[in-house]
């Protein structure tokens, strides 16, 4: 659907400039931003964190945090009025009626102490002068439209009784109930699992056609952009970098920044033809042999407390087992709550299993005593998801990297200093970074620090738990490259935990798909990703948005949770096992 360029824009933003702080602390979050939004159009504003994409949209509705942010200039013409200079009373009349908004965090965006019904109807009562009954009828209609069953009951429920996906549907119902001219969607699917994301995106597209609403979609995800947008505004550090129709942006980006951004985006299918991750070093170290063997791992988390009953608990892992060879990457993929992180921790014995076998290099980890276990940890290190939290803020970068060596008594004095410096250089940091403290590093640098730390004791195995998911895409690409390079030159084995199928495809030799504490499919990457046998794997793959506006994602396969095979694994092809 291409908008008529001759049509007058619905919203016209000109020279928008927003600053945080005052005086010496003034910091321009958005600078001279201009764009038009056409009727019926979806305009994506893309950018990495700190690009000003959210701030600029919040400003339109007067939702900037008072006293800390100031609109220093610009205009935003909507239906003949300048949104940026309307008195509070008038902008309030537009907000929630003509222009509505949905947010990233469905879990926290609804008032926890109020019933869904009230939250759905109050804007209608306020803006549309509806009676309570009318508003409720409309709310019910909307709930049905967004695909929630039993709307009658939903109205009486409280937010905590709904799942994240359902809450986002409620948010959408709320935003669309007033039949707005513009819907601003601020990272609407970022917090959701990929299968839910696909459903929500479908829903938004459907509603857009039904209501003819224009959408401003704020996102960092090029896949979502490609799937949803008509036109794209690319932002970086508060400024507009480039603007254009979605196809042009993807096929012929003019600006270097846009190109870099697009290049960094992992694309599912890009490596479909390869049986192994690409080789990035000239002479990969040759290693072989079984490094890890696990089987029958079970873990149930129980509520603790003086009065907690022993019977309840959630099964995080059920009969999980896999092997991992030296120098190999096994990717554990799954959505939130699938037990993939628990599995990673269990292998390192960071949590105690209820039952199961973990052998590393032939040693049964679960039989080791405290001291022996501590020694064994030298062989296996971990990289965590959150580079901000996984480094002790009170220890300097150099000491952090050296710590595992100190613990294991591997080196000391000058020798250790040299080794630390060498490690810093090895992961792409500089030697004068050694004396700094973690908060002085950027997210990507911190993850490099974590890697250097893990490498310091020459481990054979690294468990990497979502190592790049908190990073911007451009940084993510660099870290992934580094990890590949290290694996190949050092012969490391990775247990690579991720929710991102494209990243997995780039990194893994073998893939295990987890759902609700069980492995439902495991096998070589090509087998699992190119020829998925389990319906859940198929759904997972189908839901991944493709960062290519030319290719449309196929219809989502309907999965019925009740009939999904969740039994024992059986071999369907060599090394390719699927739950029955």
């Amino acid at each position, binding site marked *: 659907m291409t908008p008529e360029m001759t049509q007058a824009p619905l919203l016209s933003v000109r020279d928008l400039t927003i600053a945080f702080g005052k005086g010496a602390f003034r910091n321009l979050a958005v600078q001279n931003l201009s764009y038009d939004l056409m009727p019926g159009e979806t305009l994506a504003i893309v950018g990495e964190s700190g690009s000003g994409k959210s701030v600029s949209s919040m400003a339109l*509705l007067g*939702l900037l945090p008072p*006293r800390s942010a100031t609109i220093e200039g610009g205009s935003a013409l909507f239906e003949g009025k300048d949104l940026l200079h309307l008195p509070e009373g008038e902008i*309030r*009349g*537009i*907000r*929630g*009626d003509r222009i*509505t*908004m949905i*947010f990233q*965090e469905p879990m*926290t*965006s*609804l*008032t*926890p*102490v*109020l019933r869904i019904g*009230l939250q759905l109807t*109050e*804007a209608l009562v*306020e*803006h549309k002068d509806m009676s309570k009954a009318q508003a409720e009828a409309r709310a019910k209609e909307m709930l049905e439209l967004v695909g929630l069953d039993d709307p009658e009951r939903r109205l009486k429920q*409280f937010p*905590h*009784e709904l799942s994240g996906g359902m809450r986002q549907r409620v*948010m959408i119902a*709320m935003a669309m109930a007033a039949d707005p001219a513009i819907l601003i969607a601020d990272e609407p699917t970022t917090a959701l699992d990929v299968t839910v994301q696909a459903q929500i995106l479908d829903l938004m597209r459907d509603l857009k056609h039904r209501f003819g609403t224009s959408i401003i979609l704020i996102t960092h995800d090029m896949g979502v952009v490609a799937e949803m947008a008509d036109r794209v505004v690319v932002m970086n550090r508060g400024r507009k970098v480039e603007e254009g129709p979605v196809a042009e942006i993807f096929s012929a980006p003019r600006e270097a920044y846009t190109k870099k951004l697009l290049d960094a985006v992992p694309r599912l299918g890009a490596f479909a033809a390869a049986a192994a991750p690409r080789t990035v070093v000239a002479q990969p170290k040759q290693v072989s042999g079984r490094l890890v063997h696990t089987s029958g791992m079970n873990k149930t988390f129980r509520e603790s407390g*003086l*009065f907690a009953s022993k019977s309840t608990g959630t099964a995080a892992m059920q009969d999980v087992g896999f092997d991992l060879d030296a120098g190999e990457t096994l990717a554990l993929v799954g959505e939130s709550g699938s037990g993939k992180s628990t599995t990673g921790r269990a292998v390192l014995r960071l949590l105690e299993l209820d039952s199961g076998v973990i052998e590393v290099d032939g040693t049964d980890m679960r039989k080791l005593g405290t001291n022996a276990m501590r020694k064994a940890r030298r062989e296996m290190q971990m990289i965590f998801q959150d580079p901000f939290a996984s480094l002790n803020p009170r220890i300097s970068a150099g000491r952090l990297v050296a710590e595992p060596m100190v613990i294991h008594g591997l080196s000391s004095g000058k020798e250790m200093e040299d080794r630390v410096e060498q490690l810093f250089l090895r992961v792409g940091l500089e030697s004068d970074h050694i004396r700094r403290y973690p908060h002085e590093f950027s997210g990507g640098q911190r993850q490099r620090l974590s890697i250097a730390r893990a490498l310091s004791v020459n481990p054979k195995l690294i468990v990497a738990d979502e190592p790049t998911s908190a990073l911007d895409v451009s940084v993510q690409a660099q870290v992934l490259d580094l990890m590949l390079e290290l694996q190949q030159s050092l012969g490391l084995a990775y247990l690579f935990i991720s929710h991102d199928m494209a990243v997995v495809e780039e990194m893994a030799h073998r893939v295990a798909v987890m759902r609700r504490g069980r492995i439902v499919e495991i096998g070589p990457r090509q087998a699992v990703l190119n020829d998925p046998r389990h319906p859940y794997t198929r759904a997972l793959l189908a839901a991944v948005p493709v960062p290519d506006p030319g290719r449309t994602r196929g219809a989502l396969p309907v999965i019925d949770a009740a009939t999904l095979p969740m039994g024992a694994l059986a071999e369907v092809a060599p090394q390719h096992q699927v739950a029955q």
Partner: protein
Amino acid sequence: MGKFIVQRFLAALVTIWIATIAVTILIHLVPGDPVRIMYGSFQTTPEELEAIRVRLGLDQPIWRQYIMYIGRLLQGDLGNSIVGDQPVLDILLTRFPATLSLTLASLAIAVVVGMSLGFLAAYKRGTWVDVSSMVLAIVGVSMPHFWLGLLLLFLFALQLQWLPVAGGDWRSLILPAMTLGLANAAVLARLTRSAMIDIFDQDFVRTARAKGLPKSIVLYRHALRSGLVPVVSMLGLQFAYLMGGAIVVENVFAWNGVGRLAIEAVFARDYPLIQGFILFFATIVALASVVIDVAYAFLDPRIRYS
């Protein structure tokens, strides 16, 4: 919900149970012979002391004493005071209404003044209203109860003679309740402010604003109701503080409650009365916190519907 109440109630029982152990041990921690310290008046003979020791069961091993203590406790017998030899429970119960009325009146003042001040400060965050309320609050937090009490007494009762200084009249409740209430209002104002600021930063308040709701609805329906939840959860502790503060304030204003009784008992080394007071205090505070937890549960649907 039912399970929640039962849980809270059981927790309160554990508190009371531990209190019974604590008070049984207390008497054995007293250096010297407790019987001689308590009853060793100028006319008691060693034989009499021995008889008292036997009567109180202090000749028994401590676990037996504890069982005996619990046994008597279950019959509502907290022993007899040394001064005047009267049932401790009777003494506590006749004195408690005064403390309760003081505590509740102070709680009312603290809640009304503290919460509105805190709410206002949070709402007007960063303005002079916020700054001056918080200056007021920190001064209030730093003000010794007893000094504030003396100042109020000096000003309103002695200088201006607006309020009576003695007598069981309700008007004589005003000064002690103000003293205790205002000091705790300051604490509550700080708590409320930071709770409300947390709430104002919440995504759902942004959602409510984004819906174009009038400020008043955003504030009262969305922010305040959610903000109340953590504040109410702190009221249990506030009640305990007020009960503790009452001990001092009762002594400033000669308010005839259990707090003054406790100080008298400490001076008189009336250990049965001290034991009784501690147990009584712990029980009241534990039960009050159950009540407040239940109220809290009613405010928060996340607990109510689970």
